[in-house]
């Protein structure tokens, strides 16, 4: 671009003393806290953070959107609700879900739709925000050919990849296609920016589900380092690397996407689980606590990746 705008000036919109510069509460994101069955804010920045008082209580299950401003939840009374945040205030809209929990949920990157798997109905459904209201769409029954216990799934638009103990399936709206048989061993799937990553739980291998001519079908090995990765719980991408949480070694491993080698590691004080994004910054929960006095562990990759704890105990 080589354009000159006539008379372009940049100005500070006010003086700091006039208060146009706004101070706000530091925050690292929103989380569902299982021990207190509530949604809570991580107040403060990693390293000096604490869990806030519960913002939404009496929840059996919830998954917060990457934006940190929405969530999907099941209340203790069995209602399935869409949550919208305004500051620390949440409003809930009931959604009639086709099945009951336990659920697996994956938000899209825009945080305006969430794909959910219900084990009770063996079906997938999507809740999408339309005109400010959550709408149930895209209900797909698990077909017979996609039988088996669902381990994980990823989705983008109308395509859902499902890893079951019977194999890796590609599911459309009304069809199911076996991509890889059960010996593929895929237990975890991650879709980011149009690429799908997978892990083999038994071997710790990290793979990419490669598209050929717009169709998924091939598994490309990204890394296989049994000494470093033998029981991968989950992965996330950060820049040109993958961050993998290994249960056996209780470490986060940073693996170069192109080199496939471990570049850096961080020890954890607890066994990692599914890494869940908790806000706009590249911060993930790596260990969800099971008891209120336990700390929560988060991985902050906003600068040099680093693992922090959020102190346990009561509300701060």
């Amino acid at each position, binding site marked *: *671009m*080589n*354009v*000159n*705008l*006539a*008379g*372009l*000036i*940049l*100005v*500070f*919109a*006010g*003086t*700091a*003393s006039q*208060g*146009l*510069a*706004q*101070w*706000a*509460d*530091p*925050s690292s994101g929103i989380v569902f806290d299982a021990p207190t069955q509530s949604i809570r804010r991580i*107040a*403060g*920045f*990693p*390293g*000096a*953070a*604490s869990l806030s008082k519960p913002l939404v209580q009496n929840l059996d299950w919830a998954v917060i959107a990457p934006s940190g401003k929405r969530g999907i939840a099941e209340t203790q009374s069995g209602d399935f609700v869409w949550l919208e945040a305004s500051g620390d205030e949440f409003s809930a809209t009931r959604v009639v879900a086709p099945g009951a929990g336990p659920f697996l949920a994956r938000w899209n990157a825009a945080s305006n739709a969430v794909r959910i798997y219900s084990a009770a109905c063996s079906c997938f459904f999507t809740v999408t925000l339309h005109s400010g209201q959550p709408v149930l769409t895209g209900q797909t029954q698990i077909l017979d050919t996609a039988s088996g216990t669902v381990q994980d799934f990823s989705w983008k638009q109308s395509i859902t990849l499902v890893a079951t103990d019977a194999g890796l399936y590609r599911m459309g709206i009304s069809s199911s296609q076996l991509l890889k048989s059960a010996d593929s061993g895929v237990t975890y799937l991650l879709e980011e920016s149009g690429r799908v990553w997978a892990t083999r739980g038994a071997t710790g291998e990290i793979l990419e589900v490669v598209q050929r001519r717009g169709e998924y079908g091939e598994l490309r090995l990204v890394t296989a380092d049994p000494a470093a990765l033998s029981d991968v719980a989950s992965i996330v991408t950060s820049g040109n690397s993958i961050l993998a949480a290994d249960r056996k070694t209780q470490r986060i491993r940073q693996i170069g996407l192109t080199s496939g080698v471990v570049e850096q590691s961080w020890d954890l*004080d607890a066994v990692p689980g599914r890494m869940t994004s908790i806000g*706009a*910054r590249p911060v993930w929960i790596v260990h969800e606590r099971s008891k209120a*006095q*336990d*700390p929560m562990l988060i991985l902050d990759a*906003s*600068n040099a990746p680093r693992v*922090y*704890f959020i*102190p*346990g*105990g*009561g509300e*701060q």
Partner: protein
Amino acid sequence: MGSLSRLLLLALTALPFAAQAQAPFVLRAQQGDNLTQVANGSTVTFSSSSPGTPRTIQILVTYSGTGSVTFPSGISTLGSPAFTAQLTSGNGALTPFQTATVEVVYTPTGTDSVSGELDIGYLEVSSSGAQAQRGLLTLGLSGGVPVYSLSYSTSSGGNVTALAPGGTLLFPDTLVNTTTVVPVSVVNLGGSAGKVVSVSLSGGTFAIAGLPALPLTLSPAAALAFQLTYLPRQTGGGTATLTIGLDGGVTQQYQLQGLSIVSQVAYEIVQTTGAIPLPAGQQIQFPETASGSSSQFQIRLTNTSSTDFVLSGATTTGAPFGFTNLPLLPATLAPAASVTLGASFAPLQVGQFSGSIRIGSDTFPVAGTGTGLPGYTLTGPTQVAALDQPAVTLTLSQAYPVNLTGVLTLAVASDYAPDPAVQFSSGGRTVAFTIAANSTAAVFSNGSSTVRLQTGSVASAFTLTPSFATEQGVDVTPASPTTLKFAMPASAPSLLGVQVASQTNTGLTLRLLGVATTRSLTSTTIRFTGATGFNLPNLNFTLDLTGPSSLWFNSAASQSFGGQFTLDIPFVLATSDTGTGATAPVLALQSVSATISNASGDSNATSLTLR
């Protein structure tokens, strides 16, 4: 009873008198110097001191009639051949008031009682000589010997042992300067009364007690009871002879034998390597014992005497000393039997202790030293920065013998407002730990030997102080516990990131995320870089934050966040080119870089690509 029956009884009892009244004699029995009138038809009792020893009784027969009398048929005895009789005087005719003497001899052949009859036939002639009348005097004869049996009891159960003359009475082993009392009984088991004339002893360590006045006649089945005592003054054996004098000059002798000992039991300290003798009265020195823990000795008592030993009690003096496994007392130990007691020393404080243990009649002085917690090391940072989460460990310099519990307390001092984010990973500013017995590493409530804490975001001085207690609650914290001190110095602020909080075609709001350990900011400098092809006259901005930051850091909202802040700064792009299809002014910005400052200096620069 009716009147007729009473009359009949009176008639029956009067018959002997009537018979005697018909015999004109007065009968008397003389035994030594004793003279006793006996009635015709009555029984004369003979008592010999022993079989084979004759006893003689003279029967004096005095004629009380008015004529004369002779004994033509002589004297005869019936029944037991142990009785013999003969007329020794008055063999001719007796005139009134003359006396004939019949000597009856009883010679027992055994210890059984015997009986017989003495018959004296007579012929009385009246004074006129006109009438003569025969008659018979009859006396029953009864003979027997006393049989003495000595018996004693030496056991608490009262078992009685008979002892034959010449036998030995064995006293129970007796502690020096204590008295053993043995009850003794001499019983007359014979059929005739006997007489104990004397009881005497030879031998200084034995004595007689409770002896009644002698001589004492013992009727058949009667007993003479007294006690023999043994009071040794030194260890060793003791003997004596007990002599019992009986009537007839007969004596019976018994040997007394005793053993004096220092103790009736032997003590040993039982260890895994064996048993060590423990003389009574010897001091028991317990090993140095960590306060809150305990040391024990197993003391074995063995009854080394030949009789039962009764352990009546076991007590201690001195608070830290006690017993751990006392049997139910009193306990009786048979000879050679043992019982083991656990003596313990459980100091609750540091220092030296003394006391005593008393087992039965034996006392043992005891002593022990209570030691304190060994040294320990707290490892952790010496200096920290904002948002640090350092690890801390706590290690004893040597193992402690009992399980310990403790609390590690984090204290914070700051010239600025306190930062609530300063906490252990488990929450709060205290964390519990345990140190297993015989180990050194503290294990914190997270199950790990390390615990992390977050230092917050405000310049502060930190002090970690542990406290220790045993599981029983004994505080073993040193008087001046070792602490770990570290500090977060005041420093220039730190920018964690710069973000676009919001953006339109003509403006954007930058969000600065940062930390100021002094909870103060002076200014921020924002430097934009124009996109290629754009010419912006003013790309650098320095904003004074002294006042605004003071408002923030003094606000109630900021108190929860220490030195952390989020600052949104709006910018507007204005252009005079408003024609259709004009490029959005915000696209003229390529990137932005920011720093922020306080009195300690400038922060790191943080940049963000805008397009």
